[in-house]
């Protein structure tokens, strides 16, 4: 799995690419956390999932973990562009009640 990021004003954008499972998530977890630490002054982080081809429940744990970390900095978190499969996993587990999905 790969991670790209960019900062636009008050928002940190994180673009995840590849398949999120228990094997792939560990490297990206540390990388995400470093980016969040480095952008602690931002208002929110937007995780763009357009490049995520597969995600199982490991992704839920990963996203909620980042949500908790962002909360400590007082930063909001949003999700964007999950594919149909990831969207089903996220909807079923109620993730969107914690981490809203941006429309459009």
């Amino acid at each position: 799995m790969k991670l790209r990021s960019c900062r636009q004003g008050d928002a940190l954008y994180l673009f995840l690419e590849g398949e999120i499972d228990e094997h792939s998530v560990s490297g990206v977890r540390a990388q995400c956390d470093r980016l969040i630490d480095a952008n602690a002054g931002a208002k929110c982080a937007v995780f763009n999932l357009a490049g995520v081809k597969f995600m199982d429940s490991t992704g839920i744990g990963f996203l909620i973990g980042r949500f908790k970390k962002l909360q400590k900095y007082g930063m909001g978190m949003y999700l964007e562009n999950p594919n149909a499969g990831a969207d089903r996993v996220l909807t079923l587990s109620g993730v969107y009640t914690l981490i809203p999905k941006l429309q459009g």
Partner: protein
Amino acid sequence: MNQMQLTFLSRSENEEFARNAVAAFALPLNPTLDELSDVKTAVSEAVTNCIVHAYRGTEGWITLSCRTEGSRLHIIVSDSGRGIEDVEQALAPFFTTLSDEERSGMGFTIMQAFMTDFSVSSRPGEGTTVSMSKVFGAKAEADAQ
């Protein structure tokens, strides 16, 4: 009817191998992309459980068997690991024995939701077997009626 069986080590790189092998086996049944995605997710959950829970801190064999029956795909994932003390509790949404590890506790809930049939049997100290099946085209048939 077609059948296949795979045995592989409980290494996390085999999660992707297992779900893609099942997807490839299921292709002749003409699943939709959504159905295939459901099956891959359920297999990934079952295999991850074997690696993260059943063989925690050790390495062991995972057996994955598939059988087709008309438009239905049967999948059995079994291990000889530590087993589950309380299956009913393990099936509850958000329950996890590894709460300090960013585990969602949603694995069994996803298997149940994404597959047509699901059952799990386990003996502590001996292992766990997850049996599940999916009927392809069920949604299209229901929509047509």
